[in-house]
């Protein structure tokens, strides 16, 4: 490890050297049995990779260096994404990295930063996100899970749903209603809650891919110290919106589509259509979509790196990426013939699983604020339509 370049040395490299350095390290360190997993991995499976990234100091490419991140420029963050995608690396339990970290760096108290950030980077805290509720999925502002002040604590009651990998997490960041009399988007606060608090029950939901990636989380008189509030009480909405920006930039990352496009090519080769003009034109169109998405994504990443605030137009990124991801898996079904209907990968090859990937692409346009909601946001907040 001692011979590996430090952050300064990495920064001084040209793009190509940086890329090769990242590639070599991934190839040497990524657990081979986790390549191209057919489903989202649980912590028990992907922990080993998380800890290797942590040990190398590469867990948080976008965080400032002072907080233990890599402080990389947008183009460099993209290279890291591309190399992970190229090698077929699994997504980790990364809510702490993508969402909680940036939130606390911006809005946390010095004590909160000092306590939580290192524990995210060490893998001690595994986070999940408690936003959606049964009647407030895309309509976040109507959430009903409540927190009532009682002495030094909040007492939380209610239910969250579609909580990704809540069954893996030991912390949850939660939007709760702290003032029932306020208007819809006011009176909402942001809490950090240990998942082992008495009164929390987690029920996994079986998805269409027959996997338990999402959960319901029930809160029954859960006591949460008031020091675990982030930012001002009743002003959680604006922070949640800022966080949504980070989430959207992540959901808009080209990694998912790039992964799928690679699999589409393999499938086309296996099905014998790779050299057919008809397929090749469709593939090329998808590849152009991907390359343009990368250009657009880089612009938003650059805004974050400069420390500027993301505008509502980041919603575009989420829509474009998730719909491209789906279009790629649509193309898979169209060329796979009868294999499209199979439950398992073809010929035992995880990289040839058109049906499974098609199904896994479905929720991307629903979660993280449905694409319908994103289009509403674009129309009203970006285009200023009435």
């Amino acid at each position, binding site marked *: 490890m001692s011979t590996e370049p430090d952050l300064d040395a990495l920064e001084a490299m040209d793009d190509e050297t940086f890329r090769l350095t990242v590639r070599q390290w991934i190839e040497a360190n990524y657990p081979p049995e986790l390549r191209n997993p057919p489903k989202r991995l649980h912590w028990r499976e992907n922990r080993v990779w998380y800890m290797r990234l942590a040990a190398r100091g590469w867990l948080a490419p976008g965080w400032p260096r002072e907080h233990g991140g890599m402080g990389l420029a947008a183009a460099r963050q993209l290279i890291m994404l591309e190399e992970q995608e190229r090698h077929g690396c699994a997504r980790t339990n990364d809510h702490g990295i993508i969402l909680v970290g940036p939130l606390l760096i911006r809005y946390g108290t010095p004590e909160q930063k000092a306590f939580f950030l290192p524990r995210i980077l060490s893998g001690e805290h595994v986070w999940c996100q408690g936003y959606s509720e049964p009647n407030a999925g895309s309509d976040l502002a109507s959430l009903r899970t409540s927190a009532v002040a009682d002495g030094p604590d909040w007492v939380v009651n209610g239910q969250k749903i579609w909580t990704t990998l809540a069954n893996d997490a030991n912390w949850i960041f939660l939007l709760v209603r702290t003032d029932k009399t306020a208007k819809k988007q006011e009176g909402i606060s942001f809490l950090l809650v240990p998942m082992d608090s008495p009164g929390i029950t987690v029920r996994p*939901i079986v998805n269409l891919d027959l996997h338990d990636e999402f959960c319901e989380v029930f809160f029954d008189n859960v006591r949460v110290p008031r020091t675990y509030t982030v930012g001002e009480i009743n002003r959680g909405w604006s922070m949640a919106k800022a966080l949504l920006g980070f989430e959207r930039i992540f959901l808009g990352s080209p990694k998912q589509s790039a992964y799928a496009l690679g699999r589409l090519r393999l499938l086309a080769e296996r099905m014998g259509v790779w050299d057919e003009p008809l397929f090749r034109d469709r593939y090329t169109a998808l590849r152009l979509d991907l390359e343009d998405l990368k250009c657009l994504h880089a612009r938003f990443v650059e805004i974050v790196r400069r420390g500027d605030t993301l505008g509502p137009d980041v919603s575009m990124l989420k829509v474009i990426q998730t719909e491209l991801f789906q279009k790629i898996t649509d193309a898979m079904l169209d060329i796979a013939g009868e294999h499209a209907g199979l439950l*398992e990968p073809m010929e035992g090859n995880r990289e040839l699983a058109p049906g499974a990937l098609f199904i896994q692409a*479905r929720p991307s346009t629903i979660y993280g604020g449905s694409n319908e909601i994103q289009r509403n946001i674009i129309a009203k907040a970006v285009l200023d339509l009435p």
Partner: protein
Amino acid sequence: MTSDADLDESLRLIRDSARGIATPGDTRRIRALRFSTTGFDRDTWCQICAMGWPGLRVPEAAGGSELSMRAYVALAEVLGEGLVAEPLIPAAIAAHVLRGPGLASLLGGETIVIPAWQESANTLGVGLATSVGTRANGQKCFVPLAAGGDMFLVAGQGGLALVAADAPGVRIERQPTQDGGHFGTVTFSDAPAEPVAGALEPALEEATLATAAMLLGVMERAFTLTLDYLRTREQFGRKIGSFQALQHRAADLSMQIALTRASVEAAAASIDAGSPQSRAAVSRAKARASQAAMMVTREAIQLHGGIGYTDEYDIGLYLRRAMVLANSFGGAATHRARFAMLAVEEDA
């Protein structure tokens, strides 16, 4: 010749009786069968035989009910709505070819005969790497619900032959499908076989169209469930079905369904009329149905939002069935290519 009114009445009757097996909206039976070994239920199969459906297109003289192709697609549509798992279309292919005691045993429900003709994906013709005669040798793939068959009607070099599923030299490998059924890869190693006269092709045409009709049923039911959801689910204090963007998308789906119905029924009428253009019409209907069913079921998930992605909610069952049927007997691209070829012949 029956009049239009007589035809309408006979179609109504067959739809009604089909709904007796395929209760709309009740998926308990279907869910219980998912991912089971055979993927379907033998008792229900016997009921289906008692209704005479496998012999729907068999001449009365041979013991069938000699109904029109329009009747067959009406039936298949309702079975699609109900996600019925039993292998009617495969058995109807076999019934189209078999005669005598073999046919009687099939129509009576004693023997389930599954045709095995395909040797690779995306193909419409009989694979000829398998040889059949008094022995069968070779490998067939994508054999629907193979593990539930008593006999295989194997098509290959040498014509057709019946092979018992439990005969020596027959090996069945199950590959589970998204809809809870399976395909079999069936290997014949010098398996004893009984030659059968006839050709599979006309029966495959009808099976293709029946599959299109089944897809029509699948998409209609998925759409009905989605409309119900849009009419009742509220967000932002309004029924979500009142949002114009969703209304317009629902309108688009309804147009695809209308086009599919028009195309499927026209193709059936074309077969009934013995038109030389019927093969082109079948390809057209299957191309439309495969494409429209994927579009409708995919959008149905999206319009349901998060709940649509849970396995416990029914809407996903329709997507998964569509994924299997859309590519059975040729997907949209395959039939578009066949249509283009037939159109060139026609224009020439």
